[in-house]
């Protein structure tokens, strides 16, 4: 059987060597990419954990030049409020737009234009959204100058395209068989959407929204000229508010070590909050597959 086809010949030494070399190169690239990530987490933990304490989360920054600078309670609460309102704006509108694109607009010309603008919006730097709201809502002093809700509006502009894109992808994953089945039973389209398409896509919609929220949570620029800044705790979105990114931005420039260390602690807090949101989103996404 010496006439066995050459396809069964052993892998040549040259090929094996090239394979080994490429594996090393790719692994090295991966490690290089991981280094900054690990360093960020390392520094955050090293510098941030030391400032964490009970009073860190339960007191507000006080602005004193000497002594205890206070904690970050108002920043955490402010972030939750501002991002919460931003989500209430961007998630329903975003899912609505995605529903329009997948269920009604489809491949039409208008839907194409909408998709194009959504893509453009995704690429707009966040500071531009902040500037836009600054010009439209802050300078015009609608309901006061700097207020929390204007920060929410700026954030929602940033989150909107993310929600739309994520929701559209998820809605397109709903098999068209199901829409056909429902339509063939004599269901009007709005009921098909409400009773079949949305429930089927729900886990994915939640996941997409949470990821958009996590993204909005960490943004600084849209808040700087819209909601910033205050030290005091407030539940009133029509006042100036504190937020974690603003707190970090202000603290890190301080000459006082205790204040800089508060910035690290706030940074770690923010990362932890985003991480928790991501974990929840992943948990929901995984359950939907099962």
């Amino acid at each position, binding site marked *: 059987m010496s006439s066995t086809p050459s396809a069964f010949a052993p892998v040549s030494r040259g090929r094996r060597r090239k394979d080994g070399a490429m594996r090393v190169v790719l692994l090295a690239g991966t490690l290089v990419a991981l280094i900054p990530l690990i360093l960020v987490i390392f520094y955050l933990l090293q510098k941030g954990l030391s400032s964490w304490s009970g009073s860190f989360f339960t007191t507000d920054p006080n602005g004193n030049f000497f002594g205890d600078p206070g904690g970050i309670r108002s920043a955490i609460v402010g972030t939750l409020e501002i991002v919460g309102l931003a989500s209430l704006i961007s998630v329903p509108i975003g899912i609505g737009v995605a529903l329009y694109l997948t269920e009604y607009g*489809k*491949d039409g010309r208008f839907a194409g234009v909408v998709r194009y603008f959504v893509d453009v919006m995704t690429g707009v730097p966040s500071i531009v959204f902040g500037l836009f709201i600054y010009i439209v809502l802050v300078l015009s002093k609608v309901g006061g100058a700097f207020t929390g809700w204007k920060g929410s509006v700026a954030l929602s502009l940033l989150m909107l395209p993310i929600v739309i894109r994520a929701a559209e992808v998820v809605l397109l994953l709903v*098999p068209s*068989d*199901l829409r*056909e*089945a*429902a*339509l*063939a*039973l*004599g*269901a*009007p*389209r*709005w*009921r*098909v959407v409400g*009773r*079949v398409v949305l*429930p*089927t896509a*729900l886990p994915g919609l939640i996941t997409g929204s949470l990821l958009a929220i996590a993204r909005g949570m960490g943004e600084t620029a849209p808040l700087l000229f819209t909601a910033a800044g205050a030290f005091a705790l407030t539940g009133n979105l029509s006042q100036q508010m504190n937020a974690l990114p603003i707190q970090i931005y202000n603290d890190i420039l301080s000459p006082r070590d205790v204040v800089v260390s508060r910035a690290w602690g706030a940074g770690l807090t923010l990362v932890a909050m985003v991480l928790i949101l991501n974990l929840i989103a992943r948990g929901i996404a995984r359950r939907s597959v099962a």
Partner: protein
Amino acid sequence: MIPPESETKETTEMSTAGGPSEQAQDAPDLSALGVKEGAGHQVQVKDLHAYYGQVHAIRGVDIDFPANEVTAIIGPSGCGKSTMIRCINRMHEEIPGARAQGSVTLDTFDVYGAGVDVTSVRRVIGMVFQKPNPFPTMSIFDNVAAGLRLTGTKSENLRETVHKALRAVGLWGEVKNRLDEPGIGLSGGQQQRLCIARTVAVEPEVILMDEPCSALDPIATLRVEELIDELKDRYTIVIVTHNMQQAARVANSTVFMLDGEVVEHSPTHDLFTNPTNERTERYVTGKFG
């Protein structure tokens, strides 16, 4: 001609009963639709043309589907079988760029008449698809109830209606103890019978089946074929099939289609044993297609 989309309009427009304040949609009043009460219902397709964009898929089809009979449509892939039956309940126009011309009548009711609400058409002319497609978020019970809920039908006794539909498709014994479990947990054959139950629960007059067994194993296929035989006492059934033996087993009459046209429509036995058209003979004897 297809009238403009009017899906979101309430179906009550079609029925004679129903005061202005009435929210619930009762089953469409068949007599108001020009459909005979009680007796079986026949479907007539006349000079039907269907298009996908510029593609002329159905080229002038005339078929009579007699009441309480099973009519099978056979023909090679791409001959327009599925497109043709999707024109009967106006599902064809759901595809972007697709349109249909010609007339389809249920008894005397013009399915393509001006101002006809497509949702009322689809409630009277039900459809079963090639791939079993139960709603994945719904339980077995909810899947069968889905047709009623999705059409906003107020059912006096939803539970009884669902049980009856499950019995009608012979699924009751298999699922009665797990009605709350997800519909997609059933086997393929059970899922397809669940989908038939879902269609039957709305109490249509005509049931269109688009290759309902092509995704099923032989035993499940046999079960569905027996079911079709039982259902024809109540319904007028049109079944598209790739499988000529299946057509021979279940159909009273069989239509052979080719390139968007009807070549021959004869009693099933005649079509398979003594076809009048030479192309039919070549197809049923396996010489092409």
